[in-house]
């Protein structure tokens, strides 16, 4: 193992960190929004809709991400082409950036997991809290935004952020469709010199640093969110 190659690799890999973090963060946001929608659908009273959702979510949770990625990589252009032909958008689907396939497949896959987290968090808010709001005469909307959401959020946010670190790691699959993340950058580094051990160790260290730093930040966030549970008596 050569230390100077390792250091060189480390800095090169470090340069893709912002785009890796950014892309996974974008996916995280979209998946959270979609996951909330899924949660609402799941609470719906229509059994048909509920059944459809369950089939849908079971599919996305059941099939490995890699396979979703491939299906969307090939399927998305077809769908867009069909739409484009229908509405005369004139989009050329052969030029469609593969990053859209990554975003769509990752978002759907993650949303089906996040929906569970979101559901659990809303459920964990005690009915006593909601009843208090009702009894005081809050409207449904007021109850949701003033009582339910803030408390569910402090439960969900730490878990969602934890999912973020998973997403960062999972993004390494996206290189299959040319989207370069940390691990892909390491592979590109090895292309010229076959120095796998150096490059992969550098990638491992980058991942580790990211994860440790993010975890630290997240635990600060969590600490703040849960400030009201820090009973002086406990």
């Amino acid at each position, binding site marked *: 193992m050569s230390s100077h190659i390792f250091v060189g690799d480390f800095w090169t890999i470090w340069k893709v960190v912002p785009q890796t973090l950014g892309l996974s963060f974008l996916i995280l946001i979209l998946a959270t929004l979609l996951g909330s929608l899924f949660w609402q659908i799941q609470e719906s009273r229509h059994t048909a809709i509920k059944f459809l959702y369950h089939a849908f979510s079971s599919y996305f949770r059941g099939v490995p991400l890699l396979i979703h990625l491939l299906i969307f990589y090939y399927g998305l252009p077809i769908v867009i082409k069909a739409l484009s032909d229908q509405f005369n958008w004139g989009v050329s689907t052969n030029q469609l950036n593969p990053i859209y396939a990554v975003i769509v497949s990752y978002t759907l896959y993650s949303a089906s997991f996040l929906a569970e987290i979101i559901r659990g968090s809303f459920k964990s808010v005690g009915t006593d809290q909601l009843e208090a709001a009702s*009894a005081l005469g809050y409207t449904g909307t007021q109850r949701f935004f003033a009582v339910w959401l803030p408390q569910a959020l*402090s439960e969900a946010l730490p878990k969602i952020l934890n999912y973020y670190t998973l997403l960062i790691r999972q993004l390494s699959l996206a290189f299959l469709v040319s989207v370069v993340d940390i691990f892909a950058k390491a592979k590109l580094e090895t292309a010229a010199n076959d120095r796998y051990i150096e490059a992969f160790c550098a990638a491992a260290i980058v991942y580790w640093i990211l994860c440790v730093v993010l975890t630290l930040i997240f635990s600060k966030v969590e600490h703040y969110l849960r400030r*009201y*549970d820090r009973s002086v008596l406990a």
Partner: protein
Amino acid sequence: MIEITNVHKQFNNRTVLNGINLHAETGNVVTLIGPSGTGKTTLLRCINLLEEPDQGTIEIDGVRVQIPIKNKNDILTLRRKTAMVFQQYNLFRNQTVLQNVVQPQVLVKRTNKQVAKQRAETFLQEVGMQDYQKYYPSQLSGGQQQRVSIARALALDPKVILFDEPTSALDPELSREVLNAIHKVADLGITIVLATHEMQFAEEISNQVVFMENGNVVEDGTPAEIFHHPANERTARFLENYRVRQAPIYSAQIKKFKVV
């Protein structure tokens, strides 16, 4: 004024309220007593429609809701006539004491935030909690939480306040404080309905006592009637365990305090 007519409620085909009728004049303090599991809490929850009865009519201060409810807005209108102080106090755990009292005023009564804050401070002072404005509920003792809960309810200017077991797990000194607070509320012309297991407390505080059993009102009368000359044999047996005393002691000790 409260007028409850023929309220029925079942849970899983078990009848919990079996045709309750109750009339209370404005400013009355009504206590519900009776064995555990008899439906006292359920009745309180039906009054503000936290639990929807299966049948019956509830009227508070001119707002009349007939079951089945046709207009869902009536629920809100009725609830805004009442405020509830829960047995577990149910303060918003993510809000400080002050926020707990301010937010409902702003959201429900559309009070200006500054005004709401001033009012909150006054009411917290009334219940002796002015020094705890920045605390979270988890940092307060049970008695302290309850007092904040009372302040929160009062700040909404309700016509009716519903109390579920206000003194369970409070020591005698705190119980007296709560008693003072409730008396003061009653003096404001607010009607109070209150469920309790403490007979002495019930006798001291109320001018109308309702003895319930198995979802029925067994007897309804003044404290003197219920505690000293119960008409019903079951009431008498229930109260056997409670020694009736000569003169009320709490009322002599009510401190004077002013509510805005």
